[in-house]
């Protein structure tokens, strides 16, 4: 096993553990902290793929801004008052369904022969990345920003009261 593989399996294990922590802890603040762990580990995968820029963005935006936003929302909405809100008697059934789903996916993934060529990992220059993002993938990129705009409008509509009319 090469050292890249060792690092990969370590990072992958941390990602999975972090993700499990998000869904398994009863305390939402702990969930948010586990989310940071999972997102930072994903940044590690990006570094392994020589995509430093993506790794930095991942840490700055997901590990930093997004999780802090989540923590702020928890603080402002006092979500700690109802830690059991997302639990119910269907928990065993959900676990069963999710387990079956997992087994099925793993079986299908193992029994398929994934084609896909293996290529040498090369560092993608910023210029090429910018061209890809703003030329070839301009439509999804712009629509993604529209999604954010719509979400922003929605947040205003839902958060503001009807007073003043």
């Amino acid at each position, binding site marked *: 096993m090469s050292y890249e593989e060792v690092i990969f399996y370590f990072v992958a294990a941390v990602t999975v553990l972090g993700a499990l922590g998000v869904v398994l802890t009863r305390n939402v603040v702990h969930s948010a902290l586990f989310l940071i762990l999972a997102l930072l580990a994903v940044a590690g995968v990006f570094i392994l793929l020589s995509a430093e820029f993506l790794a930095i963005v991942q840490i700055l935006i997901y590990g930093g801004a997004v999780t802090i936003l989540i923590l702020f929302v928890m603080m402002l909405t006092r979500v700690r008052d109802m830690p059991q809100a997302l639990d119910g008697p269907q928990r065993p059934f959900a676990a069963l369904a999710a387990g079956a789903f997992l087994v*099925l*996916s793993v*079986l*299908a*993934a193992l*029994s*398929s*022969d*994934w*084609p*896909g*060529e293996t290529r040498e990992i090369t560092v993608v220059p910023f210029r090429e990345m910018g061209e890809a993002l703003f*030329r*070839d*993938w*301009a*439509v*999804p990129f712009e*629509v*993604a920003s*529209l*999604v954010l*705009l*719509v*979400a922003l*409008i*929605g947040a*205003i*509509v*839902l958060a*503001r009261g*009807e007073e*003043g*009319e």
Partner: protein
Amino acid sequence: MDSVNRFGPELILLAMAAVIILADIGWALAGTGAERMRRPALGALALTGTAASIIWSALLIAFDEQGEAFSGMIRVDDFALFFNFLFAGTAAIVILASIDFLRRNRFVAEYYALILASTAGMMLLASTIDLIAIFVALELTGISLYILVAFMKDGRSSEAGLKYLLLGAISSAVALYGMAYLFGITGSTSLDEIGLVVSEANGETRSALVLAMVFLIAGFGFKMAIVPFQMWVPDVYEGAPTPVTAFLSVGSKAAGFAVVMRIFLTALGDGSISSDWATVFAILAAISMSLGNITALVQGNIKRMLGYSSIAQAGTFLIGLAVVAAADPQLLLGTSAVLFFLGTYAFTNLGAFIAVIAISSKIGSDQIADYAGVAKRSPLLALGLTICLLSLTGIPPTAGFIAKVYVFNAAVQADLVWLAIVGVLNSVVAAYYYLRVVLNMYTAEPASEESIQPGYYLGLAMVVAVVGLLVIGIFPSPLLEASEAAARVFG
């Protein structure tokens, strides 16, 4: 410029959404003097946007400006243009029906902007040929709709919004998972290239491909509101503001079918996999029709009843998808049957919901029992609702009759006689609960003699829908030709 030009119908909607939001700020600055004009003017702006979008699409056809745009992300063909008209028309009727409904709401501008953004997302869903663009378009449509469902902010509407958001997010994730599998198998996000690789594959990726297919059906099945992905429908349809329910039941459902046809016919159209998904769709069609209709029988609330009826109708559309892969020459027949049915369904269901808006806002109840004697209080509204319900049942001379004949005929020709029989039996069951409403309106004694007068805009929307479905019922050939032209894209 070609790219921008072909993207015009979506672009003009988004531009108008921005204009509406900015104009609303202008009104806020202008003070209370101009307040009286604000609501009608914003509605007029939104209507202008949809009209401009329809005209732009028509011009694209007139000048033969079809083709790809933005380096192969978008393909404006007859299929995409068919849905441009369908979505922009639906949005226009929904906006007309909303003007009176929003009389006391503070966020009129945001409401119209969200409707327009959602419509643009639906159009994009029908025209993009790349998985990543499909996903962001799906989210644009979805997020706008989550907010619109919760727009009234009372208990019912908020609950509906939350349910729709949670289930919608899960279904998006499942669809994305399916897309990831497709990408893993083929190494491309372009539907054309995926189709090419899939048709050349010789079995070693088969189990992953089947799994991808199942995930995609589950993810988009939520949008199409078919059994077993229909759990959200009754609660969300009941809790959402009624114009939004109308938009959901027509626009969102049609968008689901559009993207499913685009993906399954382009990327998974190869015979080795298409026979699999055709079987899945045939089974889901039978279950959706039967379960939707039987549950609709016992509903007391008309919005819930129309919700279950829309599940059953979606099951009928699925017959067309099941036909597509049954035999090669049937490809056109099945696709064009779905498209034609979607066109007639848009008029029919919009008409039915508009009548519900008009009647329910007056009598203050969505209960079918309270619709007693509506015919005496408002003969025209009762007549309009009756025509829509007859069309949903599939009785001539309405559009629904021709659509059902078309779909069942397609099923018989593709040797799916059992499915056609299930469909016909279901139509009989459906007739019972549709006609029960009609009977209740005409024979029962009204609770009060006060007449029900729909507003001017609502009346206009109603007239458009009812006239539309009667015209299609009597002269179906223009819509038939349009659906056949759109289906030929996959031929």
